[in-house]
């Protein structure tokens, strides 16, 4: 074999000089500075040990897949991110999507809900029901899931600062449906650190926020064992401009912070690490995205095994949801986005996603219509059933380019994590503005490349056409705010207000002490205390995070 490598190296040199060298060709590099060679050969993978570095699906280090049979056993969950307007409208959209063959739910909440304000708060004006569904109390959650059997579905909720409260509401809805919490499958995002850096729906300072997160870990490990208690997110960093390498590196740095917090709170790593899940952004660069997921699987397994000493193989396993890149969609010639979404969805599948949301072509302009969201669901279904990419596990494994890129990405990600460790971990790096600055630099570089034409965006900076204004976009009813405020008023007269007050008092006492916050939050939710009332109690005890911004 060694002789072969030497011969191949010689031949590659010859080919580079005598054959390729006689032609003019483009020089390519990744967004994170790796020069991409015109040709990859076995010489580029000679340092990769198959058994140690690649291995078999479902076994350490999981490079090829987290599960042995992958899509031959079970397809990914098709889970479009959706929700808008009132609970009623959202319930209708969910029923429509399930009828169309969607296999899981993903709840988008409006901004007031995500920041813990009721719809009648002054800061909620203009925002109610706009980017997601408005939830003020358990009553709204009951409506959202009306007629949807929670023991037969898995539900992902994009909720962070008030994650404990929305989870409590979901548990209460399940109880009303007569379903034990041990049967529930689903995910809460519950990832506060990236809210401080790129997403912005923070409420409380770092300390109490981490307490809420570890309280959820502990509570669910006992009562909701199949629930993914955290969905650590790189998606939004990528949307904010991070490169593929930064996306994984900063997300893993956040994850390391959460695992440390769990251990510090007295939990055993193997009690909560198997319930860690992820959401990433599948962007345009096809091979880079596939390599990214393979590198992330391998590196996370190593981090859990070597750095944290986890011994349960499920703790090593990297299982992820991904959504195609919203920021890659263009407002110009929106139908071109159908093609972008299809390639990104394919990359996600070849990268081994467990759960997938494909953007709709009109999302650079508005929330998707029924028709556009159906088309993006159909895109997933065509990839799942028609084109043969699900017929074997990790079909890209063994490609010289993919394996080499996987290794290079793993190295680069590891370098970044070392740098963040040196800064004192993710929370300290965020406080110093390091992660924000790195992402902003990448975003600005990208913008300059688009404006200079170095990066071609079809239909936007090249191949433009004169086009009419887009028609048939979804518009959220402007009355949603008024409807929610009316419902809130009715709720506050109908409920047992004394029960609400005593539940909020019990919550305050727990917040001031050290006991787990989940039980009193569940009691408050069941008494129909509103999201805003519960968050206000916690705001008074914990204080609020003060955002800073540097440009």
């Amino acid at each position, binding site marked *: 074999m060694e002789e072969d490598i030497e011969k191949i190296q010689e031949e590659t040199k010859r080919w580079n000089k005598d054959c390729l060298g006689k032609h003019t060709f483009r020089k390519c590099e990744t967004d994170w500075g790796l020069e991409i060679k015109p040709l990859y050969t076995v010489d580029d993978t000679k340092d990769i040990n198959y058994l140690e570095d690649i291995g078999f699906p479902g076994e350490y280090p999981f490079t090829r897949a987290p599960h042995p049979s992958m899509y031959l056993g079970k397809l990914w969950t098709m889970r479009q991110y959706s929700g808008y307007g009132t609970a009623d409208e959202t319930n209708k959209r969910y029923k429509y999507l399930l009828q169309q063959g969607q296999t899981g739910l993903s709840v988008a909440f409006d901004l007031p809900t995500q920041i813990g304000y009721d719809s009648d708060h002054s800061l909620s004006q*203009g925002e109610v029901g706009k980017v997601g569904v408005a939830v003020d109390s358990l009553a709204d959650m009951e409506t959202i899931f009306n007629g949807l059997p929670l023991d037969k579905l898995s539900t992902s909720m994009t909720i962070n600062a008030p994650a404990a409260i929305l989870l409590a509401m979901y548990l209460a809805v399940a109880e009303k449906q007569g379903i034990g919490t041990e049967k529930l499958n689903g995910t809460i995002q519950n990832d506060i650190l990236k809210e401080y850096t790129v997403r912005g729906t923070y409420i409380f300072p770092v300390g109490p926020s981490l307490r809420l997160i570890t309280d959820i870990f502990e509570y669910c490990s006992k009562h909701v064992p199949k629930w993914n208690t955290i969905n650590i997110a790189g998606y939004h960093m990528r949307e*904010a401009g991070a490169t593929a390498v930064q996306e994984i590196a900063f997300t893993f740095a956040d994850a390391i912070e959460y695992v440390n917090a769990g251990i510090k709170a007295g939990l055993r790593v193997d009690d909560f690490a198997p319930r860690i899940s992820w959401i990433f952004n599948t962007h345009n660069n096809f091979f880079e995205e596939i390599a990214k997921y393979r590198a992330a699987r391998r590196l996370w397994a190593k981090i859990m095994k070597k750095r944290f000493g986890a011994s349960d193989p499920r703790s090593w396993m990297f299982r992820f949801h991904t959504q195609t890149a919203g920021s890659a969609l263009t407002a110009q010639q929106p139908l071109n986005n159908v093609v972008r979404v299809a390639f990104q969805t394919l990359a996600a599948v070849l990268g081994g996603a467990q759960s997938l949301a494909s953007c709709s072509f009109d999302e650079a302009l508005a929330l998707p219509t029924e028709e556009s969201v159906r088309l993006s669901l159909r895109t997933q279904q065509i990839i799942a059933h028609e084109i043969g990419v699900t017929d074997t596990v990790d079909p890209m494994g063994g490609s010289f380019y993919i394996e080499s890129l996987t290794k290079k990405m793993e190295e680069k990600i590891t370098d970044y994590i070392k740098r963040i460790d040196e800064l004192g971990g993710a929370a300290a790096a965020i406080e110093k503005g390091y992660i924000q600055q790195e992402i902003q630099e990448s975003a600005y570089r990208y913008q300059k490349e688009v404006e200079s034409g170095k990066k071609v965006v079809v239909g936007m900076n090249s191949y433009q056409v004169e086009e009419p204004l887009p028609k048939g976009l979804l518009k959220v009813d402007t009355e949603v705010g008024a409807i929610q405020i009316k419902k809130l008023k009715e709720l506050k007269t109908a409920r047992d207000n004394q029960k609400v007050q005593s539940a909020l008092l019990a919550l305050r006492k727990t917040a001031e002490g050290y006991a787990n916050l989940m039980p009193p939050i569940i009691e408050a939710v069941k008494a129909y205390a509103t999201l805003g009332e519960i968050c206000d109690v916690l705001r008074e005890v914990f204080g609020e995070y003060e955002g800073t911004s540097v440009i």
Partner: protein
Amino acid sequence: MNQDKRIRVLVAKPGLDGHDRGAKVIARALRDSGMEVIYTGIRQTPEQIVDAALQEDVDTILLSILSGAHGFLFPRIMELLKEKGLGDILVLGGGIIPEDDVPELKELGISEIFGPGMSSQTLINYIRENLSQG
């Protein structure tokens, strides 16, 4: 206006929307073009934005919003600016704002609404031209 004075710009994020990639990129580009740029950070109320405009004595305000709350927040900001005697500041909007909503926003006194895909040079030129006419 005085050619020697650098153009002062307030880049503002009204409402609860945390998407500020665009706002930050624009702020950098305007600064690199020689303007003085103040960025408010996210989650600003109309009152906070108008106070910042007053204190910083800016020539132009760029409002960036992607959450769809422009229909409430932009009129409120324009109303407060007029109340404080700042009605002559050049105000521009950007983000995800449906074309259908643009005429109404322009009637409030917002000079232009820029959408996704705009180049920063287009904006720089627009600001320079419109301030020199003012």
